[in-house]
């Protein structure tokens, strides 16, 4: 069987399991998440060579994050989760930005980016209020904000990446 086909079948099975877990609590959510990242890590190990270490590191870090998610109660575990997650997101941002050359941005682009940041920062602050209710720790709060803002940066870089390559795709047809 083709590797690509196998990956698609496994992904479809995982997706069905994830959808089923919405309705029926067959497996605990954290274990399902851990299993998902574990299976994808195995595929990643097959794909990546030592040359693309960063790509493999993302999958490895996400797997470790999910492992910590299973034991989410202690403060050290939560901090560890955030640190590992920050590393994985940073690598993804680095890999994405490396491919993008400086994009041309108009005033409307800047305005919409600012609006995007404003709305999402508000959501982040709102979430932090709930976060603060259960855990009162400055370090964790800092990690929480770093993680949140990095996620926002990742979304933006993914957006610019897709714009660049979508344009390239259109150009190849014109």
């Amino acid at each position, binding site marked *: 069987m083709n590797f690509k086909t196998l990956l698609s079948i496994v992904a479809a099975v995982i997706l069905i399991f994830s959808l089923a877990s919405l309705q029926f609590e067959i497996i605990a*959510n954290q274990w399902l998440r851990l299993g*998902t990242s574990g299976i994808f890590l195995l595929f990643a190990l097959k*794909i990546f060579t030592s040359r693309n270490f960063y790509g493999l590191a993302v999958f490895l870090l996400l797997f470790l994050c999910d492992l910590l998610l299973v034991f989410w109660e202690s403060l050290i575990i939560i901090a560890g989760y955030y640190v590992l997650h920050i590393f994985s997101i940073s690598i993804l941002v680095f890999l994405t930005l490396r491919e993008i050359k400086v994009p041309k941005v108009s005033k409307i682009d800047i305005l919409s980016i600012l609006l995007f940041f404003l709305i999402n920062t508000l959501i982040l602050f709102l979430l932090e209020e709930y976060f603060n209710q259960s855990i009162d720790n400055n370090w964790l709060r800092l990690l929480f904000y770093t993680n949140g803002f990095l996620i926002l940066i990742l979304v933006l870089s993914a957006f610019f990446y897709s714009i660049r390559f979508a344009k390239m795709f259109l150009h190849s047809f014109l």
Partner: protein
Amino acid sequence: MGLTVSDLLLFGIYFVDLDKFKYIDNVFYSVGLYFLLRSYMKHKKSVKKKEIKERLFDKKDQSERDTLDVYR
């Protein structure tokens, strides 16, 4: 994008009481990981193609130089 949506939902689940969407983050997570791996696969393929092209180009260049040397 899938990973990001999954993470945002995860925060929502832990810090806001969203019982209805309790396990939906897993769906986005698996989709996100799948497409991340697929994009890496595509990238790897394109790099390989580029390397083969460059190698072929180098070989062609070398053979042209060799022919020129013969004429000289």
